[in-house]
């Protein structure tokens, strides 16, 4: 036990010491902490009136959050609870004379640390919550406490489910059937309600407000803690908090007394986890490629020199999907269309901006980044500009197609013409070009080993600085000549600006492979 505590202690202390060595990261982290604190303080002053409608929506949001959080924790527990561990844990701890239960607790403690991100996200969301719901002045503390308890219990339950499933395959199946069965029941109820009401949003809110959720242990207790942020903290809230803590202690007691042997699974999966983590650490979204079915194709690399890069990308794309459509295309299109359906009143421009925002977030997972991780693109005897053009062409075409598909479907949602839909699709494609090619200058600026968070923030700011002049220009020009161009001038100016900026970035990137370090 002492060795594990030592390990945890050292991890925390050394990560704090690291901050001292990286003053820029420290400054940025302090900046973010101050921003969160101020937004919390300012948001508390704005409070909406208490009404049945906003209470119902508030309840639905947090119940949905609880259900999703618990489902993910249990799913991870059933399928790959061993991912609590890194390869270093497998190498050092599994071989050490330490009880497997203690090592499992160590994994759990680390998992808790990983859940910390939810608190940051919640803190960011707090002003929005205060703006829309009648949350008490001290409500933010209750919401954070509720989330802490949820994360704590979800992690313990994940470990418990994993431990039970590890004893016998039969137990694993039983636990799996129970979790998926319950999820299926809840989803069936939700779908039934949505169909019955005919209004997706209202149907979901009505279903999540059904009183029986209050009586489900753990779920009901957690929900009531969240609700007390609006209705007020009282003795019942204390009881619910105690019940959650007692449940956690009970689960931990069971885990400690189980006969565990999970090292083999953990060792195998920790290698996969290392790969995923290294991708995530460098700011990439992992599209679960390990589980993707890979098609056997008879395609060949038909072109030479720089064009061979494009040819290779097409071959890779054919193996996991259509050439121009993959998981990210479906996700961006799907998410954006749901957004369009819900936020119909905000207008079609809001959809365009939302898609650009998602694009920026996911931009570090695209093919261009993958090419830069391998040494081949640096060594291929071809000019930098040609290598850049061919390495980004597929990604640009994919974005254009994503834009066209999304906006053609969106024409039905917003009741706009097909021509406008097509122009909007092209506008989105042109934004992708700028975001992609901005990376060329960002790489030169950010060659200083910043943290992922700091790098993302600076990247985001640079892209914003590049995009904003185009938006302002399009607004002014559109204001004067929109009536002569059937309202399309704004988009046409944006397309022109984005194209010029993209070409400028390509021209500036001459010799980039000689000027940047391979990461």
């Amino acid at each position, binding site marked *: 036990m002492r060795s594990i505590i030592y390990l945890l202690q050292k991890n925390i202390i050394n990560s704090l010491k690291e901050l001292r060595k990286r003053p820029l990261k420290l400054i940025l982290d302090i900046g973010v902490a101050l921003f969160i604190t101020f937004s919390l303080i300012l948001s508390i002053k704005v409070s909406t009136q208490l009404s049945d409608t906003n209470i119902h929506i508030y309840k639905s949001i947090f119940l949905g959050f609880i259900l999703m959080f618990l489902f993910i924790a249990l799913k991870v527990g059933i399928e790959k609870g061993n991912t609590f561990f890194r390869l270093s844990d497998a190498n050092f701890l599994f071989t050490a004379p330490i009880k497997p239960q203690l090592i499992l607790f160590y994994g759990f403690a680390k998992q808790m640390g990983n859940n910390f991100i939810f608190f940051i996200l919640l803190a960011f969301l707090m002003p929005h919550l205060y703006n829309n719901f009648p949350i008490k002045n001290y409500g933010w503390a209750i919401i954070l406490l509720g989330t802490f308890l949820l994360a704590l219990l979800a992690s313990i339950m994940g470990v418990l489910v994993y431990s039970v499933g590890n004893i016998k395959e039969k137990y694993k199946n039983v636990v799996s059937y129970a979790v998926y069965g319950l999820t299926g029941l809840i989803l069936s109820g939700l779908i039934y309600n949505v169909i019955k009401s005919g209004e997706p949003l209202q149907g979901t809110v009505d279903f999540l407000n059904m009183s029986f959720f209050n009586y489900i242990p753990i779920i009901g207790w957690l929900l009531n803690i969240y609700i007390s942020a609006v209705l007020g903290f009282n003795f019942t809230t204390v009881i619910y908090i105690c019940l959650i803590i007692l449940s956690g202690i009970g689960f931990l007691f069971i885990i400690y007394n189980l006969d565990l042997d999970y090292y083999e699974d953990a060792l195998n999966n920790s290698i996969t986890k290392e790969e995923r983590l290294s991708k995530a650490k460098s700011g990439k979204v992992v599209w679960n490629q390990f589980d993707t079915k890979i098609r056997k194709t008879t395609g060949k690399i038909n072109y030479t*020199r720089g064009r061979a890069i494009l040819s290779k990308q097409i071959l890779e794309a054919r193996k996991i999907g259509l050439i121009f459509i993959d998981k990210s295309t479906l996700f961006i299109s799907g998410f954006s269309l749901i957004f369009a359906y819900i936020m119909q009143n905000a207008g079609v421009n809001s959809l365009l901006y939302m898609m650009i925002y998602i694009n920026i977030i996911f931009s570090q997972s695209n093919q261009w980044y993958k090419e830069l991780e*391998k040494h*081949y693109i*640096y*060594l291929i005897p071809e000019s930098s500009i040609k290598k850049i053009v061919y390495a980004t062409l597929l990604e640009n075409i994919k974005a254009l197609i994503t834009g066209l598909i999304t906006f053609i479907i969106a024409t039905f949602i917003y009741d706009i013409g097909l021509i406008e839909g097509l122009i909007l699709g092209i506008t989105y494609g042109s934004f992708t070009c700028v975001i992609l090619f901005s990376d060329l200058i960002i790489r030169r600026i950010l060659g200083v*080993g910043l943290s992922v968070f700091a790098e993302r923030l600076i990247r985001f700011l640079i892209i914003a600085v590049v995009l904003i002049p185009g938006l302002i220009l399009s607004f002014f020009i559109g204001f004067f000549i929109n009536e002569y161009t059937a309202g399309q001038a704004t988009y046409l100016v944006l397309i022109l600006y984005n194209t010029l900026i993209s070409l400028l970035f390509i021209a500036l990137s001459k010799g980039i492979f000689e000027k940047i*370090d391979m990461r």
Partner: protein
Amino acid sequence: MLDVSDLKKSYHKVEAVKGISFKVSTGEIVIILGPNGAGKSTVIKCIAGLLRYEGDIWINSLKNKTLEAKRILSYIPETPSLYELLTVSEHVDFVAKAYNIKDYENRAEELYERFDLLDKKNKLGKELSKGMQQKVSIICGLITNPKLILFDEPMMGLDPKAIKELKSLFLELRDAGVGIIISTHIIDSIIGLWDKALIMKDGNIIYERSKEELTESDETLEEVFFRATGI
């Protein structure tokens, strides 16, 4: 073939390579030895053009980052880096096409056979073990018919047969006039192979001798290594 002059490389404030100079002639095998963190891999990556650096690196009188120099240079990294979605043969096709190499198929078949990859030709990069990935990486490096090859810890993860094949390949390439740089910290792995040895420590070359010079001094490479590095 290769002329490295006053090469310096820093990572943030840490000087990884502190102004080193050396040459590699045509048909010469140069080994770079050194303890972990000596700067061996950094030197190799600078020559491959993967890092920014100060100083000069010339390959056949061409700046190492020019296209002409890249055409005659190959690099086999320490950690094999394959495309997850390309098969073994597709990797070779890709590299051959990218370097515009014609009629490489027979050479590729010969290399598959030498490295026991004939039955793995249609396996995806991600389905291969680390050792097999290393073999693919070596084949990709050889298929471009380079005049200078950089091997960074090439024996890591290879099975005994592959090590034997690789060693005989080193000698064949040398006889064909190819300049070879091998970076390693395992002295036993390159005994009998090298023509010139460089020993690095803390970013400096602290020892440079040809095989003949070492033979005359009546010392083994291992003895020299431990004496020079003080470990």
